[in-house]
């Protein structure tokens, strides 16, 4: 930074030398310098839709996890939830960048995160429900991380697009930690006191109507839906049995998040997430 005025020099140039990670600070393109060609035989529109859907799941989940900052029951859990959110945010950035390369619009990650309306989001609805108590947040993390791990592990092996396969392969190790964390908490609470058992059970019951949505072809983004269903169901059963909790089952909710059906909770989440970027379009600082 050569400029005398620190703010001017931060805003200046917008190149790598002043890169910081926040809106308006010029830290963009996490796929910088990756070979971006779409391989022959890959349907670009479908690939873009998959990247967008998986990116939206991750962005919305990361925002919900970030809401625990300053509110988690213990400092260690707060750090854990923030770390998990950060991993998901990183995955979202990579996936949005890939979507922008292949959907023909050339949009950058910020355009996807900050400049789309709730109806344009394609995340599964489970991701956008409010945090609830710690038990519900653990129940949701258990379901979504088990599901995402199963999807990513398959995409890492079978995705025809090498960039999506690489993003998924990178995520597998991270998601293994996320699922482990949620599984251990589910067992600890389910097998804990009467009160913790009651709340863990209620948390899992709240996720149940949203489960079916995860196992459709639209949700699994090119990963075999039957295989994903089998793997996730088995993992959930393993955890609930160890926790002394009933299996997670309920009538599925009509509609589908991947088709743009939203709960009433996404709009307020996005209002907070997008507020600054929308109030000051193109701003740098």
């Amino acid at each position, binding site marked *: 930074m050569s400029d005398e005025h620190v703010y001017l020099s931060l805003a200046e140039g917008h190149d*790598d030398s002043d890169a910081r990670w926040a809106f308006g600070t010029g*830290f963009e393109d996490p*796929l910088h*310098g990756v070979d971006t060609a779409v391989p022959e035989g890959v349907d670009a529109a479908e690939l873009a839709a998959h990247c967008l859907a998986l990116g939206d799941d991750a962005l919305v989940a990361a925002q919900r996890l970030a809401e625990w900052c300053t509110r988690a029951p213990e400092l260690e859990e707060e750090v854990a939830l923030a770390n998990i959110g*950060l*991993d998901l945010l990183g995955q979202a950035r990579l996936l949005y960048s890939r979507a922008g390369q292949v959907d023909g619009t050339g949009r950058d990650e910020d355009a996807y995160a900050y400049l789309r309306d709730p109806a344009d989001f394609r995340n599964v609805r489970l991701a956008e429900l409010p945090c609830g108590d710690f038990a519900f947040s653990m129940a949701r993390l258990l379901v979504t991380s088990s599901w995402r791990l199963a999807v990513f*592990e398959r995409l890492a092996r079978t995705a025809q697009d090498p960039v999506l396969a690489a993003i998924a392969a990178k995520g597998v190790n*991270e998601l293994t*930690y996320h699922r482990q964390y949620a*599984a251990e908490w589910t067992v600890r609470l389910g097998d804990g006191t009467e009160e913790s058992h009651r709340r863990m059970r209620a948390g899992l019951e709240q996720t149940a109507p949203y489960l079916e949505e995860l196992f459709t072809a639209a949700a699994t983004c090119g990963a075999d839906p039957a295989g994903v269903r089998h793997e996730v169901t088995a993992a959930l059963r393993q955890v609930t049995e160890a926790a002394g909790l009933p299996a997670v089952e309920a009538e599925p909710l009509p509609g589908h998040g991947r088709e743009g059906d939203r709960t009433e909770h996404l709009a307020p989440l996005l209002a907070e997430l997008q507020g600054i970027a929308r109030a000051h379009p193109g701003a740098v600082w």
Partner: protein
Amino acid sequence: MSAVTVLTDAHRAARVAAEVPDPELPMLTLADLGVLRDVEVAPDGTVVAALTPTYSGCPAMAEMRADVAARLRAAGFPRVEIRTVLDPPWTTDWITPEGRRKLAEHGIAPPGPAPRRAAGPVPLVLTTIRRAVACPRCGSADTEETSRFAATSCKALWRCRACLEPFEYVKEI
């Protein structure tokens, strides 16, 4: 430019890039951490350095890119290109023996071997896996995990039951 000069430049550029410190673990160079995958000098003199992220959400990635480019420019390579390599993904096995030694020297327990798993679904293990992590201060093996997540994604928090000191541990991934 003669062939000899090109060779020398490539060696020099590789050395400059390898010595850039990691922004979050500054006792390590990017080469120690294993995130610098390749440094080449193109025929037109452009230095092409390939970096790989540790975690998807690693916020230090942009700084690493900027640091490598700035150091190379300062070393007399005006044209620098940084490429991101995602495949194969980084694991803690990429941390060099020298990097592990430096971590331990600075009170951070280095990682054990990264988990190896067969292709296919990742098994979920609910029984506690007892890891033997030696205290980087007193060397005792009587240690315990206090949190699997710490100040950065790549570390866990541990405590030594012998010398009672808390310490950080670069967890296997």
